[in-house]
């Protein structure tokens, strides 16, 4: 059983949970940074590290609105990210027989 077929950008526990969580949001919705952090139980630094990687790959999009203490960062899964997750789960199915 080899994991080479699995997208390394998603095949890491924290990023996999991030992508799956965002994929369960209703279509067209964004999730705030603090809520995502609370749901995943990650530190802000850890979360932003993974978010940057996913954003560079085009899997998530972040948007910052407001200034200072009123600033708000929201995260959403892009169509590219959704397709990547679908391809990842398909590859997992192939590896395991059935997910």
């Amino acid at each position, binding site marked *: *059983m080899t*994991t080479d077929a*699995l997208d390394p950008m998603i*095949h*890491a*526990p*924290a*990023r*996999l*949970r991030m992508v*799956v*969580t965002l994929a*369960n*949001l*209703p*279509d*067209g*919705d*964004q*999730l*705030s*940074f*603090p*809520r*995502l952090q609370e*749901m995943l139980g*990650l*530190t*802000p*630094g*850890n*979360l*932003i*590290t*993974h*978010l940057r*990687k996913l954003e560079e790959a085009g899997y998530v999009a972040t948007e910052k609105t*407001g200034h200072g*203490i*009123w*600033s*708000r*960062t*929201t995260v*959403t899964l892009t169509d590219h990210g959704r397709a990547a997750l679908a391809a990842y*789960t398909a590859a*997992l199915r192939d*590896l*395991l027989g059935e*997910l």
Partner: protein
Amino acid sequence: MNQAPDTNEIADADEGELAPAQAARLIKQTTRQAKRQFQLQSPWVTLLGAAAWLAIYGTIWLSVRGQNPYTGPTVWALLVVFVLLVFIVIGNSVFLRRRTAGISGRSRRQGAYIGAAIATAFVAAYLFMGALRYLGVSYGVVYGVYAASGWLIVVGAAAVAVAATQQDLPNLYLRIALVAIAAGSSFAGPVGVWLSMGVGGFAVLLVFAAYQVRLRLQ
């Protein structure tokens, strides 16, 4: 207010080895957790709603039982109903605020539009009740039959349309069942309608809560 990410705190990237079976388990577990946290309904809330429904209709039925001619619920019964309604509104608001915290976008806007549509149906239903009394319809029909079931037929029909457009089949069936109970209960007359609505609605909500529990266990 939304806390800004701490960009200085760059923790270890989580690059640990992940076996395919572990990944599959993680996907299932995360999906279940996310669905539960994003869902706007919960079996416990439905169960509480069923109990509140029975308490409200039961209280009024107890206060009007045996009335002939129908004179309507007593002040103490209306007071109990008012207190229960306040608890329901506050409890539901807290629950919804928690579930939708941090979520923005299309579903929030859609929720506001649906809320406006349901509120319009609700206000129109009660205005119509006032018009019926003004036009001389009997006290028992207006403050008995219509007050107990008429509003639910109007508001429920709007809610059925919402569930249909969202292709939300469980809620579609639930709302159709409640509207059917309201329509059927109307035949029970100004006193019996409260009992029929109370027991019928309670039973339907219990079945729906059981369905929600079954979904969670799958």
